[in-house]
């Protein structure tokens, strides 16, 4: 099945169904998880209701890093096998990764405000997510700056791989550097009572966000395919019948 999906035309047709189901599953999952987290979970001892932000912040932050790793893998695939679909994935996933990271950042800030009374705290994870946002922004900006698609694909692949290699290094140096200055920094989400009543909605939301964003990336890839292959027969045929 994978080989068939590697050809743009088959992918374009096949992805349509996937997008529908991923959207459906993702949205309902998110609705259920969020509703559960907002209304049916008792407030936490220390943080009260602000802990409910965790159900959006943790999935978004986790997903953002996964998207970047996926883009780096696609970059490696593109450089080694020159697979066009890998570049289509990178072009589609980068902006979405940036927006997911932005969502993670904003929810992190809004969570930090009630718990620590300050808008931004240079905690190890918030700093890493902020740098991740700049990495995503770099990917999008580099692709925008290079006109020729071939060069853009190669350049973005190299940058994605360089960035991915740096993620652990950044995490290590930031972790060490921030704990150097505030010994008692509270890790977001680590000190909450880890009993299941809190965690179930989190897993539901995490899985649903993955599913939903996967659908969004596939849909975005279809748009990119139409842009790239405007002159081909199967695209004009698609234009004709809808």
């Amino acid at each position: 099945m994978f080989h068939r999906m590697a050809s743009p035309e088959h992918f374009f047709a096949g992805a349509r169904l996937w997008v529908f189901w991923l959207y459906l599953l993702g949205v309902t999952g998110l609705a259920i998880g969020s509703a559960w987290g907002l209304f049916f979970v008792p407030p936490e001892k220390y943080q009260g209701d602000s802990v409910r932000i965790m159900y959006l912040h943790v999935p978004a932050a986790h997903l953002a890093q996964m998207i970047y790793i996926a883009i780096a893998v696609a970059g490696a695939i593109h450089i080694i096998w020159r697979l066009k679909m890998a570049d289509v994935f990178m072009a589609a996933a980068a902006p979405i990764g940036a927006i997911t990271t932005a969502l993670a950042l904003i929810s992190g800030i809004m969570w930090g405000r009630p718990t620590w009374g300050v808008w931004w705290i240079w905690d190890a994870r918030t700093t890493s997510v902020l740098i991740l946002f700049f990495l995503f922004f770099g990917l999008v900006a580099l692709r925008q700056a290079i006109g020729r698609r071939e060069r853009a694909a190669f350049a973005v692949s190299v940058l994605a791989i360089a960035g991915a290699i740096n993620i652990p290094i950044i995490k290590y140096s930031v972790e060490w550097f921030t704990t150097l200055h505030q010994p008692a920094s509270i890790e977001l989400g680590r000190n909450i009572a880890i009993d299941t009543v809190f965690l179930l909605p989190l897993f539901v939301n995490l899985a649903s966000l993955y599913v939903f964003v996967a659908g969004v990336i596939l849909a975005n890839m279809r748009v990119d395919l139409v842009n790239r292959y405007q002159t081909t027969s199967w695209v004009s045929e698609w234009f004709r019948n809808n």
Partner: protein
Amino acid sequence: MGDHGIYVWSVYAIGLIFLGAIGTYPHMALRRLKRRRREDKEQR
């Protein structure tokens, strides 16, 4: 919801906007491409 309600609701509102945006963008883009293609055809 206590006094933290404002933060929780604003986070979910922003979440809705962001996820809604990335969710609907591809379909809007496809529709825009179709419309532009139809306009090109009419001009030709």
